């Protein structure tokens, strides 16, 4: 399998700040790759390094096997969908979409045709004559997508593209982006701080923290077997259990993660753990319980139909030893 983008010990420092710190990363051709992390974790800087807006302080960057550190953005076959879309306000939608073709010297008629095709691809046919200012946020985002795709990039970079959309629109765009990526076969690199978005859309996820990648893997690996407290904490709502607690209940003195849906309410029995209900939140399909277990906060998820204990009541919980995921960290 071809490697689309390869980072070899890439660093990008801004003065004392190590925005990206000796990152190794291989993004495969045709995959939907998500860079996930809190703000300031270096994920956007990595995207900007691929686009060419930033140059690495150290390290080796290859795009489809070619050295790219010294290649300016306008000579990279990589296109970006910007967080706030960055549509040209003085051009109409068609001219925005055709911009990349225009600067490459494609003829006017050909440009119009391809721009309209790209607009159809993002379900905005016939919008060419409008101004960006006349469009809604969701429509602007589609125009930004069409403007990038019309250039047939080898890699498409998306910088928090769904961040500014409301929930309903975001969900439908997630599906659409995924379908688009499948049908076009273009490598998508997607930056987000929303773990749900990363898990639901990506083939592989890289979790960033403080300029470093903490873990790379499939969404399932990241979710089920986080390799560190940070990943367990950041990805999903897993319970992160300290070594002492794990030692008492599982015999090994290590940090562990336990997903809330693995925690069950049980009858009092040997091996059952006593807990006190602190809070319960009704989520529709499920109910989330906050429990106090030996001073440790543990979340549990009850499915619909289960009896919901009152706040402050004493209950017993249990979980399977297999569901407890032990991490390497011991301290």
């Amino acid at each position: 399998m071809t490697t689309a983008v390869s980072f070899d010990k890439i660093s990008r420092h801004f003065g004392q700040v190590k925005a990206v710190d000796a990152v190794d990363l291989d993004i495969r051709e045709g995959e939907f790759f998500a860079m996930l992390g809190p703000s300031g974790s270096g994920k956007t800087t990595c995207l900007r390094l691929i686009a060419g807006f930033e140059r690495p302080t150290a390290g080796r960057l290859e795009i489809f096997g070619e050295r790219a550190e010294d290649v300016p953005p306008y000579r990279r076959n990589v296109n970006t969908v910007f967080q706030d879309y960055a549509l040209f306000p003085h051009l109409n939608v068609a001219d925005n979409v055709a911009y990349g073709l225009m600067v490459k010297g494609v003829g006017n008629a050909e440009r119009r045709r391809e721009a309209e095709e790209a607009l159809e691809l993002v379900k905005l046919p016939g919008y060419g004559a409008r101004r960006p200012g006349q469009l809604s946020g969701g429509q602007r985002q589609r125009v930004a997508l069409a403007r990038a795709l019309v250039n047939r990039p080898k890699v498409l970079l998306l910088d928090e593209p769904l961040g500014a959309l409301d929930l309903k629109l975001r969900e439908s765009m997630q599906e659409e982006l995924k379908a688009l990526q499948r049908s076009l076969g273009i490598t998508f690199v997607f930056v987000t701080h929303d773990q749900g978005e990363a898990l639901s859309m990506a083939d592989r996820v890289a979790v960033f923290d403080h300029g470093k990648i903490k873990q790379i893997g499939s969404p399932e690996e990241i979710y089920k077997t986080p390799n560190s407290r940070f990943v367990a904490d950041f990805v999903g709502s897993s319970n992160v259990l300290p070594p002492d607690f794990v030692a008492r209940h599982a015999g090994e003195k290590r940090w562990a993660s336990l997903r809330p849906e693995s925690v069950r309410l049980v009858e009092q029995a040997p091996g059952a753990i006593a807990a006190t209900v602190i809070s319960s939140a009704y989520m529709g399909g499920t109910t989330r319980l906050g429990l106090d277990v030996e001073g440790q906060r543990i979340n549990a998820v009850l499915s619909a139909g289960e009896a919901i204990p009152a706040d402050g009541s004493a209950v017993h919980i249990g979980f399977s030893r297999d569901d407890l995921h032990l991490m390497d960290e011991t301290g």
Partner: protein
Amino acid sequence: MNGAASASGAILPARSGLLGNLSDTLWRKPTLLLLLMLAPPVLWLGIVYLGSLFALLLQSFFSIDEFSGLINRQFTLKTYGELLRPSNIDIIVRTVSMAALVTLAAAIVAFPIAYFAARYARGKWKALFYLGIMLPLWSSYLVKIYAWKLILAKEGILTWLLAKLHLTWLIDAWLSLPVVGGNSLSVSFTGTFIVFVYVWLPFMILPVQAALERVPQNLVEASSDLGATPAQTFRTVLFPLALPGIVAGSIFTFSLTLGDYIIPQIIGTSRLFIGQAVYAHQGTAGNIPLAAAFTAVPIVVMGFYLWGARRLGAFNAL
């Protein structure tokens, strides 16, 4: 609850006094407030400013009796006929060409400075930029012009510097050219041009800088990302978005050059510009109608200029 406590914690505390009543009334009647605020400037602008301008323009439809030198207060286009005499047309063409060249040069010089200030200057560098632009405006215009006269004079600093650089031949070659040349830079159109550009430059830099400041950096990145070279980005993104600023600046440089009479008088040839013609006709010659007709020229030229700029889409990005 006792009475005192409820009084101090009243939900709708009464406001007493004249000022209190006044502000309450203005809050209830915002139109009244607007009227009060607008009346003085509207009166000033309408009567003192535009009114006197119209009174002046009205004079251009009077004529002067060539024998008695008295003004004949009957409406006629005779004065405008005089304006179209070849010697006066010369003055108009000379002034408008100078204004156009000064504007073009000011825009070219101002753009990089404005771009630097808008894009890169932060904190104390920005303060330094504003200081550098504004400082010349705080000193007297006449002092600056006489300083330039010394710089450009035959024995001046510039000639001395060029001599040290063994480039005297260059300035001699330039001064031997027709129209732009002359005995020295300080008595040539080139000198007039240089001083005009210097004096009006801040009026171009500031609006261009303001326009560029409003162009988000990511538009430049997006353009580059889509394959545009820096030159293409300048032509297709930066320039169109800065154009309203350039037009705003050019209104200043263009109209200020059209109306100025001091610079060409101190630095330049003996040939007249519109401002000097107005000065001469309303002063020594006492020909107010012709002076007024000359005054109409910059207004008409600016009108056409703005109309043309609008047609070219200069204000589309506003």
